[in-house]
């Protein structure tokens, strides 16, 4: 690995690094040990506190929550993609009457906290599908706006010569967009799109606030019954981490298969990131 900050270490540096390494390992073990000791001392390791996660009916409750969470996340992303495409392309329109409303839409829903949006939609009441509706609609509006920026940036990243060549052979404006620019932009967009999927999945946990069915809601049922707050939060965290790592692997595979050679690195996406911010994709 070449790095700006340091050279290949010499013998003395290697020795020093080894010492720092040993100290680090000891420190990490000490921290983990202290946590386990504290858990033990406060009786948090007792079987009674963990039992719910081995009880078949409660495992089923969690699994049902998991399915609903994944359903909400998938639904939101599947609907957000066309919305993002439309808004992204509209933001690039030559017509002010299309460009400005699209700009306002995207900027507004990106800047407003997602939770606030969900609570607002929920307060309107009387929707067809119960509390899952405000959750999915909120996720849709937010992720659609973020994807719109991703789409716009992707289209702008296609070399200008591509559009010029397309116009030169006599294609119309919408044909240039549909046949030449969008297909190439999609390849460029893939990494951001995948990290946005992870973000959407994590954000489904916000359904907790409006008691929408899902993983965190199932967790709430459990800790309210058994009073095992720590254990429930840890189990939820582990489920989300595994789910996101799997999604990351899937993303890497998709990128290898369809995205060309550029490598991507996905670590959990970024909740409510500004696209092209850099931090979201590192």
């Amino acid at each position, binding site marked *: 690995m*070449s*790095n*700006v*900050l*340091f050279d290949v*270490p010499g013998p003395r*540096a290697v020795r020093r*690094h080894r010492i*720092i*390494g040993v100290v*680090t*390992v000891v420190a*990490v073990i000490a921290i983990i040990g202290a946590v386990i000791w*504290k*858990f033990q001392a*406060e009786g*948090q390791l007792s079987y009674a506190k963990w039992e719910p996660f081995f009880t078949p009916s409660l495992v089923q409750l969690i699994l049902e929550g998991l399915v609903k969470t994944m359903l909400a996340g998938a639904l939101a992303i599947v609907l957000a993609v066309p919305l993002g495409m439309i808004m992204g392309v509209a933001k690039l329109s030559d017509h002010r009457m299309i460009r400005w409303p699209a700009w306002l839409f995207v900027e*507004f829903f990106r*800047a*407003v*906290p*997602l*939770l*606030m949006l969900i*609570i*607002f939609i929920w*307060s*309107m009441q009387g929707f067809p599908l119960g509390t899952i509706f405000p959750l999915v609609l909120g996720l849709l509006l937010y992720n659609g706006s973020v994807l719109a920026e991703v789409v716009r940036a992707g289209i702008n990243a296609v070399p200008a010569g591509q559009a010029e060549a397309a116009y030169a052979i006599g294609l119309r404006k919408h044909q240039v967009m549909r046949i030449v620019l969008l297909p190439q932009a999609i390849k460029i967009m893939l990494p951001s799109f995948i990290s946005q999927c*992870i973000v959407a999945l*994590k954000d489904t*946990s*916000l359904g*907790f*606030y409006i008691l929408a069915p899902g993983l*965190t809601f199932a*967790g709430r049922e459990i*800790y309210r019954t058994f009073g095992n*707050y*720590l254990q*429930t*939060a*840890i189990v*939820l*965290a582990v489920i*989300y*981490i595994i789910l*996101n790592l799997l999604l990351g692997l899937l993303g890497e595979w998709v990128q290898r298969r369809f995205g060309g050679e550029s490598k991507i690195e996905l*670590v*959990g*996406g*970024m*909740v*409510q*990131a*500004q696209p092209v*911010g*850099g*931090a*979201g994709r*590192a």
Partner: protein
Amino acid sequence: MDALTDNLDLILKGFLETLKLLLSSGLLALALGTLIGVFRLSPVPILRGVAVAYVTIFRNTPLLVLILLTYYGLPQLGIDFGFFWNITLAMGFYTASFVSEAIRSGVNGIPLGQAEAARSIGMPFGMTMTQVLLPQAFRLVVPPLASVFIALTKNTSLAAGFGIAEATFRLKGLLNDHATERVTIFVGIAIGYIIIVELISFGAHLFERKYAVTR
């Protein structure tokens, strides 16, 4: 508009709480995230491993789950700093993982040739660091850090369900009390958040313009 103007003091108090949360968890995230970021960039493989583990765990866990952990979980261990600080802890630890990634991506954005050139004209390590690398690193890190803090601003809304009367908590209350003016209330409070977000990105923009790296 009445619902907004009549409750202006309440809303402003809410935003004050939002800002307090933003400041406290932002400082924690900056301190911890810089440390993890330095680990991530260090030549010692084990330190890098620790940083990667930290980032993987905290970035893949929803913030809400971390809040549940510190808000309900910590008191069960006999550790309780009160509502505000328990939530600050969750937000700070969560955001620190994004800060560390922002710092890493910023520092890695410096071309390798800069360090090589410094070394080739005989600069010692300390000088390479202070004269060539760090001044560039600070500037390159500002834009991604600004996005992290914008995200944090919006994330503070998650405190609404946990006994902190910040802006989104006020929204919830006002929506209940003034059913006919829901849209006005929503847009009004949204504008409050937008102002904070714009101030952060404007500050970052000013900084960038003043200290731009010319290439």
